[in-house]
């Protein structure tokens, strides 16, 4: 209300001759230019001009104030920023301006510092922020300078300071609202995190038993595959002594781990002896794998594959024996390639009973031959003092091999490993993330980390075991991989196992010979063929006959062809030659109706429609004749030929320069509908050939000349006078209209376009999808679909016949 009053007042004053109209116009222009410049600083020249004008009279100050306030009200922060800067300049100068502004200080603050939360600052965020900060700075300065003289200014400053809690020392000048918002956001986030963490903890509690079960299962599997060394300490010193040397020879029976231990024991023994006699040179080569955290499995599993004892100094018999042993060991290896404790033990116990006997025999023999050694053996577990023992342990060659005894264990182990790595591991990873983000339940986190490590160790262990799965697995891929096929396809593959170990053949119901089932089948087929009574034999017979016949026919054909159409170039008459030539050129078309009538066009009969005679008793259609379709006659002689050529896509573009600086993108073959025939152009769009350039110029000149005589203004005048459309709107007027639109858009080209910023992909899609036409089209098709369905459903019902 007061504003309006003041405007009236200003108007009144301006009427009262203190204001010059032209000056006012220039003022308005200056203010508009300044505020729509889009720059963050004011043009010094322009502001100086404004100041100079304002200096002359207070009336101008009022006028400027109104102009500026109007600009401050614009929904564009850049405009507001510039307007505020003008305000600031004038505020520092004019008392009148100060009075006016202070009177309207509430509005001013609302427009610049967003004191009213319902009126946020308009879009370009950067300038809005800048506006806020600059205004607050300015208000502070104003208050220091003029606060005493202008009460409301001081009040406004206090209001900002106390009520809006603006810390004027804070450069960023965040209001309480902003701070609150931030706090709220943070608390929200925290609560969300906490909720997540709680849910995760719940989930953990639920799944923990499963994971633990998985862990214990896999642990048990490992136990079964490879007992822990602690539990494996079967050998006591006594048995060691009594077993004596034969432990070395029967090492392949007792298993690799035993062997290792044995070696270790030997080693200590030897060292012990060394002290006494210092005569024995013992060499134990034992490659040890690094194992993590006292995990002795590797130590054990890297059992001895080859054991070779080398006697440097001893009897030939011993040598022999050792050779025997090594050969035996090698034999054992050949059997199974690798040795695993349990399976090996169990399996070989059956298989190699004979070997044991042999060993015992050997032992006896040994005992007889070398009593000294026996006593040594009894005392120290050594055959003799003076030989070197070199034991080579080959870790690479050892694997756990899958067989029917451990296949279940391995299966479970793989299942568990897969479960652990694909399900639990990522799950735990996720939980850890959530919990560590929320920063709660630290002991839970620790526990989770432990479990994670345990899960990882399962994988490592399985890797370290080097399990040799059944061949089919190996064919399928690395057994360590977590892929699903390893597990899903196992039963399927049973039948395809190409090689079955001999000892298993009986189980599979196979003979021991090498021929596989496929060869057997072919064999049986051959057998059948031999039998003349079988169907296969007769079929084969007929086949043979047929092929003979075909061969014969082929030969005949070739012969006849040669007879009829021998080499034309050499021996034929010219007419025939021509005919042949024509024939070769003549098109070949499939037979059709047109060919049917081709040689007798007079026979063509127009197609008729024969109406069936009415079955009705008394209602008879008037014309019951046949309808002859004369027009259809031509159809019979016509033939639709499909384009047999190959479509070549146009590889060039028109590339004529367009108004907007781009090049024409049309891909016409010969002629662009807008820019004429297509000519080679360079990247700028100018024609490559000189003549083309001239042509283009000529055309342009023509266009210009045609439009020149059509003076748009004049045409428009004439049009408005006569009311006849002379086409000014279509040629130049259109251009002008466009220009108008552009002008509107480019009215303030320096300002950031607020609307443009909202041009997101979503908005663009919206434009397309929510388009009126598109909507109506979609709705129409849906309606059509509905009605169609409806008709299909109810169209036959008498009840509904008239409803739709």
């Amino acid at each position, binding site marked *: *209300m*007061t504003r309006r009053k003041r405007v009236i007042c200003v108007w009144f004053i301006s009427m009262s001759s203190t204001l010059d109209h032209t000056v006012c116009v220039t003022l308005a222009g200056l203010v508009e230019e300044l505020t729509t410049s889009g720059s963050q600083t004011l043009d010094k020249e322009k502001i*100086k001009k404004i*100041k*100079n004008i304002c*200096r002359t009279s207070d009336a101008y100050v009022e006028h400027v104030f109104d102009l500026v306030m109007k600009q401050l009200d614009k929904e564009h922060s850049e405009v507001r920023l510039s307007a505020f800067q003008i305000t600031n300049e004038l505020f*520092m*100068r*004019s*008392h*009148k301006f100060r009075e006016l502004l202070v*009177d309207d200080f*509430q509005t001013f*603050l609302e427009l610049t510092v967003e*004191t009213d939360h319902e009126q946020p600052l308009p879009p370009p965020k950067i300038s809005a922020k800048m506006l806020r900060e600059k205004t607050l700075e300015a208000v502070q300065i104003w208050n220091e*300078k*003029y606060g*005493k*003289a*202008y*009460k*409301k200014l001081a*009040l*406004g400053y*206090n*209001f900002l300071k*106390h*009520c809006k809690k603006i810390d004027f020392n804070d450069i960023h000048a965040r209001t309480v609202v902003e701070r609150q918002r931030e706090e709220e956001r943070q608390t929200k986030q925290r609560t969300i995190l906490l909720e997540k963490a709680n849910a995760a903890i719940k989930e953990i509690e639920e799944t923990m038993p499963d994971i633990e079960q998985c862990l214990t299962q896999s642990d048990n599997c490992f136990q079964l595959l490879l007992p822990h060394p602690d539990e494996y300490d079967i050998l006591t010193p006594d048995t060691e002594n009594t077993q004596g040397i034969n432990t070395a020879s029967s090492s392949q029976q007792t298993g690799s781990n035993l062997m290792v231990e044995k070696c270790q024991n030997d080693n200590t023994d030897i060292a012990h002896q060394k002290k006494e006699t210092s005569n024995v040179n013992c060499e134990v080569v034992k490659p040890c794998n690094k194992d993590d955290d006292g995990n002795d499995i590797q130590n054990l599993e890297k059992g001895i594959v080859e054991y070779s004892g080398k006697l440097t100094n001893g009897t030939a018999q011993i040598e022999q024996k050792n050779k025997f042993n090594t050969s035996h060991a090698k034999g054992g290896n050949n059997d199974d390639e690798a040795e695993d404790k349990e399976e090996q033990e169990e399996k070989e116990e059956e298989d190699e009973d004979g070997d044991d006997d042999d060993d015992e025999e050997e032992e006896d023999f040994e005992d007889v031959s070398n009593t000294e050694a026996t006593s040594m053996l009894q005392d120290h577990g050594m055959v003799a003092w003076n030989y070197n023992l070199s034991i080579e342990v080959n870790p690479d060659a050892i694997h756990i091999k899958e067989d029917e005894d451990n296949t279940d264990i391995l299966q479970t182990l793989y299942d568990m490993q897969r479960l652990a790595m694909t399900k639990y591991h990522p799950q735990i990873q996720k939980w850890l993330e959530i919990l560590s983000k929320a920063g709660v339940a630290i002991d839970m986190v620790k526990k989770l980390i432990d479990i994670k490590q345990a899960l990882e160790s399962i994988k490592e262990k399985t890797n370290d075991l080097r399990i040799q799965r059944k061949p089919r697995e190996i064919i399928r891929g690395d057994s360590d991989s977590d892929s699903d096929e390893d597990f899903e396809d196992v039963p399927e593959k049973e039948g395809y196992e190409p090689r079955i170990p001999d000892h298993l053949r009986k189980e599979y119901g196979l003979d021991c010979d090498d021929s596989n089932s496929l060869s057997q089948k072919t064999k049986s087929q051959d057998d059948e063929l031999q039998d003349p009574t079988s169907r296969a034999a007769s079929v084969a017979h007929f086949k043979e006959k047929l092929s003979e016949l075909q061969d014969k026919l082929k030969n005949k054909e070739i012969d006849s062809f040669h007879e009829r159409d021998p080499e034309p170039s050499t021996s034929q008459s010219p007419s025939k030659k021509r005919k042949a030539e024509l024939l070769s050129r003549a098109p070949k078309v499939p037979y059709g109706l047109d060919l049917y009538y081709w040689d007798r066009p007079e026979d063509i009969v127009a197609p008729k429609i024969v109406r069936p005679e009415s079955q009705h008793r008394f209602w008879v259609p008037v014309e019951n004749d046949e309808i002859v379709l004369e027009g259809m006659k031509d159809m019979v002689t016509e033939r639709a030929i499909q384009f047999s050529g190959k479509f070549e896509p146009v590889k060039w573009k028109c590339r004529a320069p367009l108004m907007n600086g781009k090049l024409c993108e049309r891909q016409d073959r010969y002629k662009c509908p807008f820019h004429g025939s297509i000519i080679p152009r360079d990247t700028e769009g100018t024609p490559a050939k000189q003549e083309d350039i001239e042509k283009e110029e000529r055309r342009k000149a023509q266009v210009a000349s045609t439009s020149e005589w059509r003076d748009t203004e004049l045409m428009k005048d004439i049009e408005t006078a006569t009311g006849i459309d002379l086409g000014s709107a279509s040629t130049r007027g259109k251009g002008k209209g466009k220009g108008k639109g552009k002008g509107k858009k480019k009215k303030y080209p320096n300002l950031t376009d607020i609307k443009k910023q909202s041009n997101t992909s979503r908005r663009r899609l919206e434009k397309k999808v929510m388009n009126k036409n598109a909507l109506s089209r979609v709705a129409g098709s849906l309606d059509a679909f509905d009605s169609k369905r409806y008709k299909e459903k109810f169209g036959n019902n008498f009840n509904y016949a008239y409803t739709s």
Partner: protein
Amino acid sequence: MLSFLSARENGTHRPSALSRAEATRRIFSLELSKDRDVQRIHDSGVNTLDIDPVEGRYLLSGGTEGVIVICDLECRPQENYTCPSVCTIGRSSRHVHKYSVDTVQWYSHDTGLFTSSSMDKTLKVWDTNALKPADVFRFETIVYDHNMSSVATKHCLIAVGTIHSQVVLCDLKSGSSTHVLRGHKASVLSVKWSPRDEFLLASGSRDSKIMLWDVRRAKSCLSILDQHNGEKGKGSTEAVNTAHNGHVNGLSFTSDGLYLVSFGTDDRLRLWDTMSGKNTLVNYGKVDNVSRKGSKFTVSYGGSPDVAFVPMGSNIAVFDIYTGEYVATLIGHYNNVNCCTFHPLYQELYSAGNDSNILIWEPELGQKTDVAEKKDNKQSSSTVGNAVQDTWSDED
């Protein structure tokens, strides 16, 4: 003014005519005081103000934080004078109201006593000198408004409007509530004693009714004010008479007690004849009412057309109450205005709002010239003078 003086000297006018004319002139020229300030104690919004009727010197104010402040308004001829606070019942006090203080009122005969009611469901009677409550009335519900008669000699009742539909009368003599006036259907937002008849009480409620009570007759109300004056219009098909089409959240008697002004959330002001209980049908136009609790507007005192000062958003609208003419808008607050109170002796207006300012509006009558003269005297030294000067720099 000179003509009034001479007329008075001649005896053609009654002596009151001069004072009335001058008062009216002053009332119509209220502006934000340039020189005077009230010390800023309240941290949050101020809900209520009251000036002591005995000396007109102490301003009582109650804030939304439960703080009650008493300021000394005695003016000293000085340029920037801030009215100091005499005493404060701050948050540190043991007796402070827990929640927002909605109404404060001086005892009409002595500044040694004042009353305050609050959202913490209590009405406290304070001993000003000790700054301790002499008595505390506790209610079951939030207290919206209370009022003590300024003219009562035969009773000492405080009318209390609460969230319950009844008006409770508390007797200061016995220290307990004596009556309950039943009649309203919804919470009572405003109660006012008539300044003319010591037993006449008006109450405005959320059920959009205004009731006049004679407290001697507790059975039923004297009358229910009807905005249509009994004429059944299109809108008044209901049996009950309503004063507004929304809540009635402000009531104020004119100083002579002949008229009652009411303010409702239907954005209307209405003027009622208290004698007949009729709506005078004065049209004030639309007056924005943003308050959903009581809106404490005031009516001037001693002017020949009296005016109503009505909080309207962050401004105060001034209306001629008899003609409904819009007089002016007082712009000064930066947030919603909660209350205004009129100083009857100096024709000043005090207003307070959510921006925690208490603003003084005083008549702006030619003092400018005095200031200008003063400025001329000490032109060079006065900073204010410099600030007011134009400072066009020559370099431009």
